[in-house]
């Protein structure tokens, strides 16, 4: 809503203020089209998978993630090391190039979520805020699912 008003104001400014050009990147903003928060088994950290899209003409960088219902969260990447080993490394800054989408998925990128409120149940929504270098804080939602749902929702 805030964004729509922003675009409307920019358009109004362009119409009435004379020569102000509306930048291309205001046709859409950085955000996510899919968000799945996997409820952990037995008090383990949770995993959050986002499809972060950047429809703007400028590259952006995701630098932090936080959840209203968790203590902390970090972006991690699981990497196959070629010898059958999987290795998990923190991603301090995740570049999202212009007109590109970062698809988080098992075996690749995930947000590791520590201290998630155990009251969250499958079917609930969890509030997520991602901080971007350009776009700033973007708040949205993720669907709470279980590991049994990952096969059909995230591996296809």
């Amino acid at each position: 809503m805030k964004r729509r008003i922003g675009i409307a104001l920019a358009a109004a400014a362009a119409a009435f203020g004379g020569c102000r050009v509306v930048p291309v990147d205001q046709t859409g903003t950085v955000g996510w089209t899919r968000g799945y928060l996997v409820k952990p088994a037995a008090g383990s950290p949770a995993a959050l998978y986002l499809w972060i899209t950047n429809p703007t003409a400028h590259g952006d960088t995701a630098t932090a993630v936080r959840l209203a219902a968790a203590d902390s969260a970090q972006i991690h990447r699981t990497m196959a090391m070629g010898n059958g080993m999987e290795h998990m490394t923190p991603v301090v800054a995740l570049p999202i190039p212009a007109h590109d989408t970062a698809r988080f998925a098992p075996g690749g990128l995930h947000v590791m979520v520590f201290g998630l409120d155990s009251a969250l149940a499958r079917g609930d929504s969890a509030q997520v805020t991602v901080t971007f270098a350009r776009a700033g804080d973007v708040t949205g939602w993720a669907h709470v699912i279980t590991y049994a749902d990952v096969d059909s929702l995230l591996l296809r």
Partner: protein
Amino acid sequence: MRLFVRSGGLLALLPVLAAGCGRLRDTVDRLRGQPLVLGATISPAVPRPDLTMTATDGRPYDFGQRTKGRVTFITFGYTHCPDVCPVHMANLAGALKQLTPAQRAAVTVVFVTTDPVRDSLPQLRQWLASFDTTFVGLRGTDEQLAAMEQAFHIPPASREDLPGGGYGVSHSAQVFAFTPDDSAHVIYLPGMPAADYVHDIPRLLRGAF
């Protein structure tokens, strides 16, 4: 199948078909050079190791003896693992639910913790039970774990600190599948969907891979 119809041998094969249509299909697929399973076959196969660790009931679990002759899926990991391990366990659990009771009874799933510091036996039990209460969890001393890893020719798991205090454990991420010949000829890589296990398990039970 068509091969036999053309040669007029179908009638003669009816008893064989009744005995095991799957075996016939295995033979045809093998003749065609088609892989029988969706998992990846490995060579040389891993012999079923005769090693003992501790099960979640606190008792010694002799892996070789307890799983002898059974289709056995075994994987290494840790319960704080965010995606590779729980996805393996969830997909295996999902697959087992789709088997016949007889097939289901013939399969064992074993999870070996590579993080014995955080994975106490109760933690391991609770975590596994969230997928399937029949899954076997094994925990051992450093020596027992190292012996198990060596038996599968996998590099030892290693601890990697994460910012903010916790740590991850780099570990072998494939699931090994033993067939009734007490060898693992087939492995499953991370992200293997339940449907692929459902496809393979009847074949593994027949020793076809």
